[in-house]
C-alpha cells in the first residue's frame, strides 16, 4: 500500500521522539523459526486479566507461535491510538477492542487484513451469528475485516424501590407508559423547592458517542432492520427518528430529565429512577454496591404503536488483524483461539461481558454461569437481536449530526420532532456527499 513519504516521516519521527516504536516481529530459534505476534487488548482491568490468562495458555500450547500481549497505549480513545499507529505503521498483529464504526475507515486505508480470505472464516462466523446479523458487520465492498467478539446490549435498569414508593407495579414498556410514570417519579423529596429525583438522566452535551445510549438505542428498538445509513445512502426511517426525538423532548420539556452534568452516577446515588445501560453497570453494582440497590432490568421503551421484536443498540467490539502483520495466518489461528467456546466462557466469567454467539442463551457450556447470573442472561437474550452502527466511514460525523439535532429538538425544543427528523436526514445526506 502506497503512503506519502512526508506523512509517514512526520508520524514516524513523532513516534520515535515519544520514545517507542521498536518492533519485535519474530525471532529465529535454534530449532526452527518462532513467530511472535503482538496482541493489543483494552486497558480495562478485567479484560487485561482475561487476555493475560488466554495468552498464557496459548503460549504454553503453541511454542512456535508466541504472543506478546500489550495494553492499548494510553490515549483519549482507542480510535486515536489506532489512527496514529496505522499512520506510523506500528499497528499490532491483532487488536480486540475495535469499535465496528471505525472499521470502514481502517479498511479504506488498507490497514486491515481481509478475514474472509481464510478458508474457515465462514464456518467460524456461522457458528457465532446469523447471516443477517453478520451482514451488519460486512464492509461496503462486500468483504469482512472484523470478527464481532463481544456485545454490551443496552437495556433499561430501574430502581424498584422508587417505583414501589410511587405505587407503580411494573416498569414501562411504551413511551406513553414511561412518560406517565415519569410524572410520578420526578419529585422534590426534601421539599426545598428544588427537584432532586428524576425519571432519567442523559448527558446533554453534544458529544457524538453519547447518542449511542439514548437516541440510537431507542432508534434501534423501534426501527427494526433499518439502519441510519447503508451503501452510501441515507436509509433512516424519518417517522421513527421523529418519534425518538419527540420522546426525549417530552422528557426534557417536562423536567423528567435534568439539564445538568453529574460528576457521579445519579442512578446509583438513587436520584434517577431509570437509566439506559449495558451489562457493565450490573458488574459495577455487584462489585461496589452489592445488596444496596434494588434494581430490575427490562428492554428499553418503544413507541406505543410498535409491535415488532425487542431490539436495542449492541455496543459491539470486534477483533481485527492489521495488514502490517507479517504472519496473518498465525494471527488468524490466535484470533480463532480467542473466540472459541472456552475463551467466550472466560469472557463471561472474568469480565461479565457477553460474547457474540448465537447459542449463548441455551448452550450447555454457559448455562451454569447464567443460572448464577440471571441479570446477565437478560442482556444475553437481547444480544441476539442487538444492532450495531452502520458500516460507513462517516459514522462519527453522522453521530455528531444526530447529537446536534437531538440538542436542538429534544433538549432545547428549538424544532418540532418532524422538522428535526427532516433536518437530520438532510444533514447526513450532505455529509455523505462531501465525503464521497
Amino acid at each position: 500500500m502506497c503512503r506519502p513519504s512526508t506523512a509517514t516521516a512526520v508520524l514516524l519521527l513523532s513516534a520515535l521522539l515519544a520514545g517507542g516504536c521498536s518492533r519485535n516481529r519474530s525471532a529465529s530459534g535454534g530449532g526452527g523459526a518462532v513467530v511472535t505476534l503482538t496482541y493489543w487488548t483494552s486497558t480495562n482491568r478485567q479484560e487485561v486479566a482475561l487476555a493475560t490468562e488466554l495468552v498464557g495458555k496459548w503460549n504454553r500450547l503453541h511454542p512456535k507461535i508466541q504472543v506478546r500481549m500489550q495494553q492499548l497505549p494510553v490515549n483519549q480513545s482507542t480510535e486515536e491510538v489506532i489512527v496514529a499507529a496505522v499512520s506510523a505503521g506500528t499497528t499490532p498483529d491483532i487488536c480486540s477492542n475495535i469499535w465496528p464504526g471505525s472499521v470502514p475507515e481502517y479498511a479504506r486505508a488498507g490497514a486491515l487484513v481481509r478475514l474472509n480470505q481464510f478458508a474457515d472464516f465462514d464456518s467460524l462466523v456461522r457458528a457465532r451469528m446469523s447471516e443477517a446479523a453478520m451482514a451488519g458487520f460486512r464492509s461496503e465492498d462486500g468483504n469482512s475485516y472484523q470478527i464481532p467478539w463481544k456485545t454490551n446490549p443496552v437495556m433499561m435498569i430501574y430502581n424498584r424501590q422508587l417505583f414501589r414508593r410511587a405505587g407503580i407495579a411494573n416498569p414501562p414498556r411504551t413511551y406513553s407508559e414511561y412518560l406517565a410514570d415519569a410524572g410520578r417519579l420526578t419529585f422534590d423529596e426534601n421539599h426545598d423547592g428544588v427537584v432532586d429525583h428524576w425519571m432519567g438522566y442523559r448527558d446533554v452535551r453534544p458529544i457524538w458517542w453519547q447518542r449511542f445510549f439514548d437516541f440510537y438505542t431507542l432508534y434501534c428498538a423501534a426501527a427494526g432492520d433499518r439502519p441510519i445509513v447503508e451503501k452510501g445512502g441515507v436509509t433512516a426511517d424519518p417517522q421513527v427518528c421523529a418519534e425518538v426525538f419527540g420522546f426525549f423532548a417530552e422528557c426534557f420539556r417536562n423536567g423528567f430529565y435534568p439539564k445538568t452534568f453529574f460528576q457521579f452516577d445519579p442512578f446509583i446515588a438513587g436520584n434517577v429512577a431509570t437509566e439506559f445501560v449495558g451489562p457493565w453497570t450490573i458488574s459495577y453494582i455487584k462489585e461496589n454496591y452489592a445488596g444496596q440497590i434494588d434494581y430490575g432490568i427490562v428492554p428499553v421503551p418503544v413507541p406505543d404503536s410498535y409491535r415488532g421484536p425487542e431490539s436495542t443498540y449492541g455496543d459491539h467490539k470486534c477483533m481485527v488483524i492489521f495488514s502490517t502483520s507479517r504472519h496473518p495466518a498465525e494471527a488468524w489461528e490466535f484470533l480463532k483461539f480467542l473466540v472459541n467456546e472456552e475463551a467466550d466462557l472466560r469472557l463471561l466469567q472474568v469480565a461479565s461481558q457477553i460474547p457474540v454467539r448465537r447459542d449463548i442463551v441455551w448452550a450447555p457450556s454457559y448455562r451454569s454461569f447464567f443460572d448464577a447470573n440471571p441479570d446477565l442472561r437478560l442482556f444475553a437474550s437481547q444480544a441476539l437481536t442487538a444492532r450495531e452502527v452502520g458500516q460507513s466511514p462517516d459514522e462519527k460525523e453522522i453521530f455528531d449530526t444526530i447529537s446536534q439535532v437531538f440538542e436542538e429538538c429534544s433538549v432545547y425544543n428549538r424544532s418540532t420532532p418532524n422538522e428535526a427528523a427532516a433536518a437530520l436526514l438532510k444533514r447526513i445526506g450532505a455529509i455523505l456527499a462531501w465525503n464521497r
Partner: protein
Amino acid sequence: MLRARSHGWLLSSPYLVYAAVFVVFPLAFSLYLVFHRWDGMAAPVFVGLGNLARLVQDPLFYRSILNTLEFLVIHIPLQIVFALLFAVALNSITWLRGFFRAVYFMPVVVSGVVVTILWQQLYSYDNGVLNTILTHLGLGRVPWVTSPALAMPSIALMATWKNVGLYTVMFLVGLQDIPAEMHEAARIDGATAVKRFLRITVPLLRPTMTLVVVLSTINGFSLFVEPYVMTGGGPLNSTLSTVLYIYNQGFYFGHLGYGAALGFVFALIILVVVLIQRKALESA
C-alpha cells in the same frame, strides 16, 4: 574566521534542529494538507481549493468565529479591569504581600482541565454550588452553562478567574516601574488618588496594557479546554470555539486537510486582529 563561523553554526544547531522539526516542517506539512483530503491513514488526495471552498460555505466555522469573538469581548475587559485592580491593591499593601501574590497566581498554574471540572460543579444547574446558594437565598436558579445566552459569558468568567493572576503580575511589574516621585509630586499639587490613577498610573502602564491585551487576545483565540470539557461546544453550538471546531474536524472526524485549512485561515484572522489592536493601542 571560518572556524568561528562553523562554531556559530554548531552552537545554533540545537535551535535550528528544533525549529526545523517542530516549526518549519509542521507548518509546511499543514500548508500541504490545506490542498488535500487526508484522514491520517490513507494517502492524501489532492483537492485543490476544495477545502477552502467548503470553508467559505461552512456556517459552523462562522459561528465558531463569532463565539470566539464574543468570548474575547467579555473576557479581555474583565481580565484587564480585575488584573489592574488586584495589581494596584497588591502594590499598595505591605502585609502578607508575597502570600497574596501567590494566592492570586495559583489558578494560573493549576491545570485548565482541573479548573474546568471544578467550575462545572459550581455552575451545574440542578445541583451546582452557585444555584444551591441562590435557591437558599430565595432566588431562582441560573442556567449558567445550559442556556445558549449565558454559556459563553460563564466560560469567560471562569477563564478570567483562572488567568487573572498572570496579568496581575504583569501589571505589578509595570506599576513598580512608575517612579514614586511622580505620584508624590502630584499629591503635593493636590491631585486626588483617582486623578493620580487616571492621569499617572494608567498612561504610564500603556506598554504593559498593550502586552496584556495582545497576550490575552491570542490566548483567548486559542479557547479550547473550557468548552471541550464543560460544554462540548453546546448548548446549540453557543460555546463552539474555533479551535474546538478545528479539533473536531481534524481529530474526531478525520478531516485533517479541512482542519488544516480552517487552522490557516484562523491564524490569518488572529494576525489581522492583533495588528489592528496593536496599531490602535499604540496610537491611543
